[in-house]
């Protein structure tokens, strides 16, 4: 097995850049004064990021994905996570077959 020097450099560069984005949040945290309005904003960060990550799949990919997302939401309110995820995946497979 071989490792090309240029490839190795590219991998190291990507690894360092990625790690930088992973720890930068910790530094951001130290300067952020979390009170009042800023506190409300920070508390909304997890749902806001989660929503932003899935929005293209849920809203802008196809009808099958949008309906399957609705099925998953309903399932998630009543069923354990694994079952809700399975229900979502099963519906997307069936819906893709039905409506392309």
């Amino acid at each position, binding site marked *: 097995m071989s490792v090309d020097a240029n490839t190795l450099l590219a991998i190291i560069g990507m690894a360092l850049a990625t790690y930088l984005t992973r720890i930068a949040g910790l530094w951001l945290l130290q300067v952020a004064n979390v009170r009042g309005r800023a*506190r409300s904003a920070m508390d909304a960060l*997890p*749902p806001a990021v989660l929503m932003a990550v*899935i929005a293209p799949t849920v809203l802008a990919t196809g009808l099958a994905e949008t309906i399957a997302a609705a099925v998953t939401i309903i399932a*998630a309110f009543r069923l354990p996570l694994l079952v809700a995820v399975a229900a979502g995946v099963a519906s997307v497979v069936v819906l893709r077959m039905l409506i392309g």
Partner: protein
Amino acid sequence: MGARTQDFSAGAIAILPVLVATAPVALLFGTLAAAKGLSALEIWLMSATVYAGALQFVAIDQWADPAPIGLLVFTALVVNVRHILMGASIGRAMTDFSRPAKYAGMFLLTDEGWAFAERRVREGSLTPAYYFGIGVSMWFVWTSGSLLGAVIGSGLGDPSAYGFNFAFSAVFICVLVGFWSDWRTGAVLAASGAVSAMVYLLVPGAWYIIAGAFAGVGTAAALHAKSDDQPPDGILPS
């Protein structure tokens, strides 16, 4: 079992559905990277040190010989900017973590692992053992999956045909449901979702996550009510 072992296993068990969905995606990554001419060792190294699925697929798509180092590093920064927001958010909950544990933990930060850690925070508190239970098992599945894909090569087909790619969205939806508290959560989600989808359709690249996140966070700040503050010592919030 000690409390640590118990928490570590609890994290690994909680993330199990994600591991099941990650394995075929890791296999596919290894296959695609091998098709671009990377050796199995190089592919394992990338998965082990870069350890960022979305970026790795984009990087392999742009791969050439010799590797365009500057472009790849810049792509890494752009695709992973979302980690800054996730790190800032989960960092607040890492009160039980030593400094080295925090910095080691951040190496293992992924979208899905982060979502499950935030879920744990909402349920109670996040211990380092639980966090590493999530992170280490995901790292192990991602690295061994990509190595296996690199070695056994093509013939696996496209995981999207089996709905595996939707599994990640489904997992996120389930975690998201746990964040619901009142109508303001709805407003935050509506703003984030609408802006994210719009930017996704209009702007190339991964900017939609940042744009949507800021729209949601801005909405939360705008809807902030004075009654939400409980200043312990009478200091008025800004």
